[in-house]
């Protein structure tokens, strides 16, 4: 089902069978429990879910994580046991042992199929035990990998307080300065002077879970433009969720997989969504900042120089990557943004596999992709939604790309066949956003190529026996 490209450089969209390998979306607890320090994640599912988490998160399991399985037994599935009573018992235990500020229930395939009414139970139990309970249906029936975070943040969006709900100055400060200590200018004597470093603009809230250093970097980057970030969804603590003023607050996403969060903020919280490419690579970061500036009525300054300076730093890597080809098998939804950056670096992209493509939410990114292809003289990019890994591997064997970005299920078998690979999961966990981390993306892309180049003279390329 190939749709005709609108222009010579606009991407072509295809859809395959959806038989591809990816992580289950419940994996989002791995990074979200670390990000939201006062949370507890309860995954309501079976041994299968538990086994996945245990093996995928390996080392973290041993560090007394703030997540656990509510493992469903036969009695739960055939409704011999009452879901409310069971969840109450477990949540009281969690409250006693860990005393979190929020319990996040992760609904799974099983709770979907047996139609356990988590959304119905949560408010009642919340009243009874006195801890907020947020319900996110991050199941494998509907979602892939990083979309798990999207379901959690979409559920959390409606917990962001309105200005009227936050009365005490203390709390106001906490919520608007979730970047602890970094921007608490109000407390210093020079406060007013620093405050004026910001332009007059409507409040801006950014959404997407990033590690603290990256949050700081992007916030500082906007500060250079005189833009103040009023808060992040998620904040480091649940009690610091940003204030959202309905109809007034502007929001912008930092990751391509947050389409449900975007629409929750837009529809339920009546925020103004800034549609922009995502801040991956110097090109994406610049376009992201420009879009935010434009929406808030601020004239960007020095951005072009900033981008050029980063490109100058990347010169060595870009020269190395130029002309090399890459194939994305697709599993984490970062693919379009990464492909766009790599095309700008002079690479050829054979195919961009992606689990799910929200053309509306990713509009800014798709536009930038098209522009990049046009400017770099790159053929229209083939975007394959719900790919079929079997067919993809046949295409890979024909195309022989210089690099395949793929999940761990295929990486070793491809390497054994002489095809260089990079694990896609690493892009999800590494710091890759903003100007500062552009180099880290290229380092990750380069590493397998450098390594196989280093081993080249040994003649160990194909390590399987032909049948």
């Amino acid at each position: 089902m190939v749709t005709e490209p609108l222009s010579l450089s606009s991407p072509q969209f295809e859809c395959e069978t959806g038989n591809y390998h990816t992580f289950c979306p419940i994996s989002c607890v791995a990074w979200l429990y670390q990000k939201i320090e006062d949370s507890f994640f309860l995954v309501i599912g079976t041994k299968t879910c538990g086994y996945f988490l245990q093996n995928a998160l390996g080392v973290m399991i041993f560090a007394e994580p703030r997540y656990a399985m509510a493992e469903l037994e036969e009695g739960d599935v055939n409704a011999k046991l009452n879901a409310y009573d069971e969840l109450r018992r477990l949540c009281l235990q969690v409250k006693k042992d860990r005393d979190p500020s929020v319990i996040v229930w992760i609904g799974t395939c099983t709770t979907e199929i047996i139609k356990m009414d988590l959304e119905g139970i949560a408010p009642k139990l919340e009243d009874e035990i006195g801890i907020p309970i947020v319900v996110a249906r991050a199941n494998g029936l509907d979602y892939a990998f990083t979309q798990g975070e999207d379901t959690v943040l979409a559920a959390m969006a409606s917990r962001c307080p309105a200005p009227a709900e936050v009365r005490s100055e203390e709390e106001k400060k906490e919520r608007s300065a979730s970047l602890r200590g970094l921007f608490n200018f109000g407390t210093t004597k020079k406060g007013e002077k620093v405050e004026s470093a910001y332009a007059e603009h409507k409040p801006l809230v950014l959404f997407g879970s990033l590690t603290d250093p990256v949050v700081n970097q992007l916030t500082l980057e906007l500060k250079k433009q005189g833009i103040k970030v009023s808060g992040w969804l998620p904040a480091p603590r649940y009690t610091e969720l940003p204030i959202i003023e309905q109809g007034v607050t502007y929001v912008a996403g930092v990751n391509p997989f947050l389409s449900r969060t975007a629409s929750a903020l837009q529809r339920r919280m009546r925020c103004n969504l800034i549609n922009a490419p995502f801040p991956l690579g110097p090109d994406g970061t610049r376009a992201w900042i420009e879009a935010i500036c434009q929406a808030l009525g601020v004239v960007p300054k020095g951005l072009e120089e900033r981008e050029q300076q980063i490109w100058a730093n990347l010169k060595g890597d870009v020269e190395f990557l130029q002309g090399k080809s890459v194939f994305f098998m697709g599993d984490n939804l970062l693919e379009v943004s990464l492909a766009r950056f790599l095309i700008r670096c002079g690479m050829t992209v054979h195919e961009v596999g992606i689990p799910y493509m929200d053309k509306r939410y990713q509009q800014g990114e798709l536009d930038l992709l098209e522009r990049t292809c046009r400017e770099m003289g790159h053929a229209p990019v083939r975007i394959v939604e719900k790919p079929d890994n079997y067919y993809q591997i046949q295409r890979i064997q024909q195309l022989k790309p210089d690099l395949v970005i793929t999940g761990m299920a295929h990486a070793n078998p491809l390497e054994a066949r002489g095809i260089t690979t990079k694990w896609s999961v690493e892009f999800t966990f590494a710091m890759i956003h903003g100007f500062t981390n552009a180099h880290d993306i290229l380092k990750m892309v380069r590493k397998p190529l450098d390594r196989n180049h280093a081993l080249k003279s040994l003649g160990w390329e194909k390590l399987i026996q032909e049948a």
Partner: protein
Amino acid sequence: MKLAYWMYSGPAHIGTLRIASSFKNVHAIMHAPLGDDYFNVMRSMLERERDFTPVTASVVDRKVLGRGSQDKVVTNIVRKDQEESPDLIVLTPTCTSAILQEDLQNFVARAQESTQADVILADANHYRFNELTAAEKTFQQIVEFYMAKLKEVPERTAQPSANILGISTLGFHNTHDCQELKKLLGQLGIAVNLVAPEGCTVHELQNLPRAWFNIVPYRELGRTTAEFLQERFEQPYVDITPMGVMQTARFVRAIQTILGDRGSVVDYEPFIKEQTLFVSQAAWFSRSIDCQNLQGKRAVVYGDTTHAAAMTRILTQEMGVRVVWAGTFCKHDAEWFRAQVEGMCDEVIISDDHAHIGDRIAQAEPAAIFGTQMERHVGKRLNIPCGVISSPIHIQNFPVSYRPFLGYEGTNQMADLVYNSFTLGMEDHLLEVFGGHDTKEVITKTVTAETGLEWSDDAARELAKIPGFVRGKVKRNTEKFARESGLSRISLEVMYAAKEAAGA
């Protein structure tokens, strides 16, 4: 519902997939939602497998919930048959299919009409079986399926021969154990007829009855298959795990008895003696003066039934170590375990609750732990050394080098493992005499200590978050950058600018 953080054995479908992907040219199709094919990652990563794992999913999604998965499952089976031409396709149910209650058996029958491959439905219900019991069940199921197809029972081999049953993918040191068993059988003058499930095709299963007897090295896998073969073909089996010097000798003697019964009288006693005293180093190791200090040291043992029982025996009978308690997570086989370790430890613990096991380790305060990866981490926390002797395991438990746990080379490996787990003898004495190691505090003075550069609070906090081993480098680079830029105060912005400039 049960609050759970960690489990020792996986869900049923993992056991089925381990069996299916151990065979050559068998393809498993999981009836499962997206993301449940994590097995492929484990096999590809832990075993460093060069081939694509022959497991695909027939994905259960929203549409399937609405319409049923009949067409999809059948189409996927037929498609896989055409693409890969497997000998057998195993439709593998998961926790999801357990509650959907579709008639998977019927889909199998329908698919079978249009496939070259045989198609079966693995009979392992998620809520009744775990990884280990499901593996046992699936192995037996496949063997029975192909034995039923036998037109006539093939004749026994002229010379003594054996099948090795229960070697499987993702099994703890299984490939090394298998090599060691083959070597041992070779030395005993016994041919290996077939190894299953690892590395054999389902058609080769028809040769199983040719062997004089079966060997089941692990308690968890292959026993019910051996029982079935005994009943069907009067094929005896040896289910003694040849782990440790004494058990290996018992194993060899059991083989001697079987051969004797079959009219091939052999005397393996000289071989056992030679191996025990001079080839394996374990007996001499136990006797050597260096190991005197193992006498009476306290240890705890925990793992699957095979390894925990064998380890308990080795520690107490062959090395003079005192086992405070021995335990297993295989609750389904608790009685056997109790009988095995009876009299060899102060207490037996049957539990699959890792927190309980952790508490019991802390209470026992042993000098060493022999357990799974989980106990290794408990040991780390309590500062007690741990030797890993059983699944669940991590990638480091799939060593590239030759590390059998079974047979005579296995005894050498065990000796090293035990010896290296306890504090070394002389070191032990020194610690007692001098009351501890040298002080660990090292006086450090970085090159840039007196640069007069000031770090802002937030920058200092950020620096503190950087892992210790690169922190010094980051600090030096940042200060160098600040000096070159003529800055005296290092803020967060300066830190990030330095990172960009360094391209690191």
